C-alpha cells in the first residue's frame, strides 16, 4: 500500500514538475506546480508530517500560488516565444542536468545503503502540538525573526506596489 501510494504521487509530482518546465504558458506552469505541491503534501503525510502537509497546502497551494495566478491574470501574460535561446545551453543543458541527477542519486544510494523502510504511521510526532511546542521553545528566536522578515516583506511589497507619490 505504501509503495503504491508513494509511486502514484511520486509519478504525479515528477510529471507535473516536467510540465512546469516544458509548458510555454505561465498559467499551465502554475497549475502543474500546484499539482507538484499537492502530491508532495500527500508524501509528507506518508512520512508522518501531518501539520507540514496541511501547511504546504494552505501556504503554498492556497496562498503563494494564488498570488502567482493572480499576477499572471493581472498582467495577462501570454505564452513565451521560443526564439533567443542560447545554442550552448540547448546543446549542453539537458545532458549536464541528467549527469548531475545521476551523480546525486549515486551519492544518495551510497550514503544511505541500508536504511529501514519508510512506513506510514511509524513516525507520529509531526502533530500540530509537537511542532508548536518546538517552535515556541527551542526555536523561539528564529520564529520571532521570521515574523520580522514577514513584516519587512509586507512593507517592501507595499512600497513597490504603491503608486508614485509626486
Amino acid at each position, binding site marked *: 500500500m505504501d509503495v503504491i501510494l508513494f509511486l502514484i504521487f511520486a509519478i504525479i509530482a515528477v510529471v507535473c514538475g516536467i510540465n*512546469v518546465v516544458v509548458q510555454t504558458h505561465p498559467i499551465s506552469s502554475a497549475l502543474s506546480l500546484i499539482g507538484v505541491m499537492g502530491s508532495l503534501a500527500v508524501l509528507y503525510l506518508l512520512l508522518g508530517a501531518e501539520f507540514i502537509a496541511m501547511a504546504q497546502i494552505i501556504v503554498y497551494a492556497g496562498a503563494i500560488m494564488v498570488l502567482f495566478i493572480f499576477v499572471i491574470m493581472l498582467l495577462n501574460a501570454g505564452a513565451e516565444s521560443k526564439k533567443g*535561446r542560447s545554442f550552448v545551453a540547448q546543446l549542453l543543458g539537458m545532458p549536464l542536468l541528467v549527469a548531475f541527477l545521476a551523480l546525486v542519486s549515486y551519492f544518495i544510494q551510497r550514503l544511505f545503503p541500508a536504511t529501514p523502510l519508510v512506513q506510514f504511521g511509524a513516525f507520529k510526532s509531526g502533530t500540530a502540538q509537537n511542532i508548536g511546542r518546538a517552535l515556541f521553545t527551542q526555536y523561539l528566536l528564529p520564529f520571532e525573526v521570521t515574523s520580522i522578515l514577514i513584516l519587512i516583506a509586507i512593507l517592501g511589497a507595499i512600497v513597490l506596489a504603491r503608486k508614485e507619490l509626486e
Partner: protein
Amino acid sequence: MNGVPLTWYLILSAVLFSLGIAGFLFRKNIITVFMSIELMLNAVNLSFIAFSYQLKQVNGHIFAFFVMVVAAAEAAVGLAIILTVFKNRSTLNIDEVNSMKN
C-alpha cells in the same frame, strides 16, 4: 515489501530539484523562473521531511516550516517587483530586462 526505502524520497527530491534548475535556466518568462525557484524550495522541503522521518525528530519539520515562511515573504516581494518591472518596461522576458536604465 511494505514501505519504500528512504533513498526513493531523496531521489525524488533530487529529481524535482533538477527540474527546478532546468526551469530556472531555460525559461525566459520571469514568472516561470520564479515558479521554478518555488519548485526547488519544495524539493528541499521533501528532503527535510524525509530526514526528519529517518531521525525521528521534528526539527526537519520546523525547517520546512521556515522555508515556507521565507517562500511566502519572497513571493510577496518578488511578485511586487515583477509588477513594477512590467509597469516600467511592459515585458516579462528576463533577457530584455538587462539594463539599469530604460
